């Protein structure tokens, strides 16, 4: 069979001693940088890109892919341990992952995210190998109207993400989108709400916002907690996930993998929605949805798997079309060009060793992550036993190095400080930061796709209804919104009655 011989070629390429070594170093170094709070895959790859220049093309790309997976896993680790997500996907992991850490189950959260990611990685690799080519043309049918509808659906997920007041969650989503509009306007180049600052011209960096409003605000809140604030309170359970936890996680992992694989292959950065979609799905299916947000293992297993599957299948548009679906893949394109490879549909036929070698190395990279990280889980968990009076200065130092290194710009550090105060006050007012971050991430995509759809349809709003896909997606969004709003409304009424 063709697929088998191709995979054999891929594995023989990726299994060379040099390439195995490069994949290992990539995963290790990627994990180390990615674990810096606030430093996600994009920043990590950007920082480490130069070290791959001296290597041959296949080796360099294998190493970069390793760095990518490593950074992603490192990002989840810091999200779980100190509640600082480095990328959009880890926001969801931070919610229940960190709550698990507080209950003394950090090891289980780290373990299930490693295991879930590995399973997702294995399945996604097969998906890429078998279906990349036929699915590419299907994915191309997705246009701006469909992306707009998809991202609107994503916003509805954000409501589900919140466990407090729906109204406050909606306010945070709107505020997040509002923040995303700061910076140069894509269509006119006009500076929006930048107050003449060049620093704001490119908008607010996700890491800066997330670290301030999520991580630092959490530090500030812990500081007032007296003896209660040490991350691990009381005794710790077994280090790794228990059999029972594994059993509860397996279905979420598989569902997350499915969602992530499908969303990841959309060339318009669909992968960004994967963890949110998985969280929403798991919360809807859960027997005890009230545990979500308080450390439910399903809420870590599902989204982490979805994230990793999406990360992996987002290679599909790059490999089959030469088109990068997101910022990480855009850097991959740059790396290919420095190596003298023109990304495009021809890579598959002209450099099969590179193409299939990379696919094989994805699987190897995921295996290495498991090998590197499971033994490290104990070390990370032990870090949490450091008394908080020392742990929080350490978190601050690591975070500041991370934020500074993203652009070598101290202004980013200042902005993070500002967002920390804002985040602290928002928490005091009963707002949750997660919906704000999701709104922020999806804001660009929503606005740009809406405006593009309007330009392309020459101003006809009916374009959304004429397009069956976007119509269905929008209808699902409305349905989901009603579903999540109704119980709250009913609860509110009861509350009013009680108070009467």
């Amino acid at each position, binding site marked *: 069979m063709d697929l088998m011989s191709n995979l054999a070629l891929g594995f023989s390429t990726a299994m060379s001693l040099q390439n195995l070594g490069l994949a290992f170093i990539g995963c290790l170094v990627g994990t180390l940088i990615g674990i810096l709070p606030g430093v996600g895959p994009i920043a990590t790859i950007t920082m480490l890109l130069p070290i791959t220049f001296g290597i041959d093309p296949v080796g360099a790309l294998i190493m970069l892919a390793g760095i990518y997976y490593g950074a992603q896993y490192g990002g989840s680790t810091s999200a779980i341990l100190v509640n600082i997500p480095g990328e959009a996907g880890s926001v969801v992991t931070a919610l229940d992952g960190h709550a698990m850490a507080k209950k003394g189950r950090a090891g289980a959260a780290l373990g299930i995210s490693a295991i879930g990611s590995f399973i997702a990685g294995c399945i996604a690799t097969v998906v890429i190998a078998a279906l990349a080519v036929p699915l590419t043309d299907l994915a191309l049918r997705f246009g701006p109207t469909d992306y707009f509808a998809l991202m609107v659906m994503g916003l509805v997920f954000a409501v589900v993400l919140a466990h407090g007041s729906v109204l*406050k969650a909606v306010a945070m989503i709107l*505020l997040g989108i509002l923040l995303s509009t700061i910076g140069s306007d894509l269509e006119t180049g006009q500076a929006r709400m930048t107050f003449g600052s060049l620093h704001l011209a490119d908008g607010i960096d996700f890491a800066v916002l997330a670290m301030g409003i999520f991580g630092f605000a959490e530090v500030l809140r812990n500081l007032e907690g007296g003896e209660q604030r040490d991350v691990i309170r009381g005794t710790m359970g077994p280090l790794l996930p228990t059999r029972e936890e594994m059993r509860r996680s397996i279905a979420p992992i598989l569902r997350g993998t499915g969602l992530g694989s499908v969303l990841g292959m959309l060339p318009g950065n669909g992968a960004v929605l994967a963890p949110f979609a998985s969280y929403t799905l798991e919360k809807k299916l859960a027997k005890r949805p009230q545990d979500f947000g308080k450390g439910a293992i399903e809420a870590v297993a599902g989204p982490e798997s979805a994230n990793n599957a999406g990360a992996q299948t987002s290679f599909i548009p790059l490999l089959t079309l030469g088109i990068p679906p997101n910022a990480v893949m855009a850097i991959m394109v740059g790396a290919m060009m420095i190596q003298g490879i023109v990304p495009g549909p021809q890579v598959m036929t002209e450099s099969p060793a590179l193409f299939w070698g990379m696919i094989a190395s994805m699987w190897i990279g995921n295996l290495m992550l498991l090998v590197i990280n499971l033994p490290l889980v104990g070390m990370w968990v032990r870090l949490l036993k450091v008394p908080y009076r*020392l742990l929080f200065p350490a978190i601050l*130092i690591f975070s500041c190095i991370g934020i500074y290194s993203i652009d070598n710009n101290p202004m980013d550090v200042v902005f993070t400080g500002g967002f920390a105060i804002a985040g602290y006050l928002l928490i005091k007012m009963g707002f949750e930061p997660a919906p704000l971050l999701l709104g922020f991430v999806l804001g660009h995509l929503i606005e740009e796709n809406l405006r593009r759809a309007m330009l392309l349809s020459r101003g006809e709003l009916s374009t959304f209804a004429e397009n069956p896909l976007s119509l269905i997606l929008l209808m699902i969004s409305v349905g989901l919104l009603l579903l999540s709003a109704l119980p709250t409304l009913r609860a509110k009424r009861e509350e009013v009655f009680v108070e009467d």
Partner: protein
Amino acid sequence: MTDQSQPIEGLGRPRLSQDRVAGLTLIAVSAFALWASSDLETGTLRFIGPGLMPRLLASLVGVTGLILLVLSFLRLGEAMPRIALRGPVCVLAGILAFALTVQTVGFAIAAPLLAMLAGLADRDMRWIELLGFAAFMTVGCILVFKVGLNLPIPILTIPGIIQY
């Protein structure tokens, strides 16, 4: 948050509604954003201008704020929890000190400065322990990130003497 529902001290009022503060804050943010985006064009349905989304969102934020404000009068919600000063001030001072010194003097000074200033936030702080820990962290970070991973962080700059 229910466990912290003590009133804000010194406001002369026994209880400040959380929703009321939240609503007023949102309205203030909305007004500010409307002002900041007032120079942008709204455009037409075909050529949606750069101002449409910011103004639409700012207005919606204002509307949610208004609803929260109204609700705060209709029902007895949670009270505004106490807001600490020591933590935010010390941590912010540490972050700003880091930002000011990292590029001019270098990480070797910025990191201990951050650790010491922020460390003040904690009542349990012990000077000697914190100093030692800051030194350990700084050296460790330099070894891992500068020596090991070659990140371009200036470590110590004294004009004319050392630049690393």
